[in-house]
């Protein structure tokens, strides 16, 4: 049942079912455990990462701890990150960070949920390391002159999260209101956070 020989829309779904049934019959997994994991994955959304970002904007001590040991700091907020080794990289007026995994699709799923298809694409994985500014321009990010671009290729056990800059015009917003502005793409580096227009 090599998929290339029987490839249509249903084959993979049926093969998954056959495989899972055997694993369950052998006592290696259970349907309940699978369902629980699926629910857990649905519950992981970029809102988790956005909370971390907003806290860092509002609490400089937390930010310092976040930059020193990302996983430990995130656990302070009651967010379960399992075995994730999180490295948080901070954008600054002269520095813009961009995250990629050229070898596969490593991504901080515990904080952002599942990665978008574009992050896993051949084109992104190829070009983000080689021509990051062109990729950023495609995503609508134009950087002022004098800004350095730093690309992080997740080749090992670390997972990266960008701490974007807090935009001007948000001084009157609460921490929760700030969190609502932080997008998934801003935490990957393919967007910046913008203040709401009034």
């Amino acid at each position, binding site marked *: 049942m090599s998929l290339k020989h029987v490839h249509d829309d249903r084959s993979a779904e049926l093969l998954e079912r056959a495989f899972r049934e055997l694993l369950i019959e052998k006592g290696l997994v259970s349907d309940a455990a699978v369902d629980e994991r699926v629910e857990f994955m649905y519950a992981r959304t970029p809102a988790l990462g956005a909370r971390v970002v907003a806290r860092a904007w509002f609490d400089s001590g937390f930010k310092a701890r976040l930059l020193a040991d990302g996983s430990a700091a995130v656990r302070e907020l009651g967010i379960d990150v399992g075995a994730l080794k999180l490295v948080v990289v901070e954008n600054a007026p002269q520095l813009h960070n961009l995250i990629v995994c050229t070898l596969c699709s490593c991504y901080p799923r515990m904080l952002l949920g599942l990665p978008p298809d574009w992050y896993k694409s051949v084109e992104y994985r190829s070009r983000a390391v080689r021509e990051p500014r062109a990729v950023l321009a495609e995503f609508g990010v134009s950087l002022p002159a004098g800004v350095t671009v*730093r690309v992080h290729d997740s080749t090992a056990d670390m997972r990266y999260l960008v701490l974007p800059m807090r935009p001007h015009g948000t001084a009157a917003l609460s921490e929760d209101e700030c969190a609502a502005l932080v997008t998934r793409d801003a935490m990957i580096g393919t967007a910046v956070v913008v203040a709401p227009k009034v």
Partner: protein
Amino acid sequence: MTARFQLGEPVRVVDTGASGHVRTPRYIRGKRGVVERICGEFRKPEELAYGRYDGERESLYRVRFAQREVWPDYSGPADDTLDIEIYERWLERSEEGR
């Protein structure tokens, strides 16, 4: 086990000739950078990839490279960089520095 390289040390990525599952991308081999972070010790991907979960650990480094060093035709500014994690076995001291 102590880490062989220190923060700020200039290093070059060598090609160890290892085949199979390796996590050092081709594009970075032979390039020179600077150790930006000592990440700790981790089990080797080549061993984990073949079911050997209890092997020896190896130091892992975050190394920072100038993009112009990595890509001969890089058109961005000289300050643009690329950070990658590289296992100790893939690094040697770079005497010429950056």
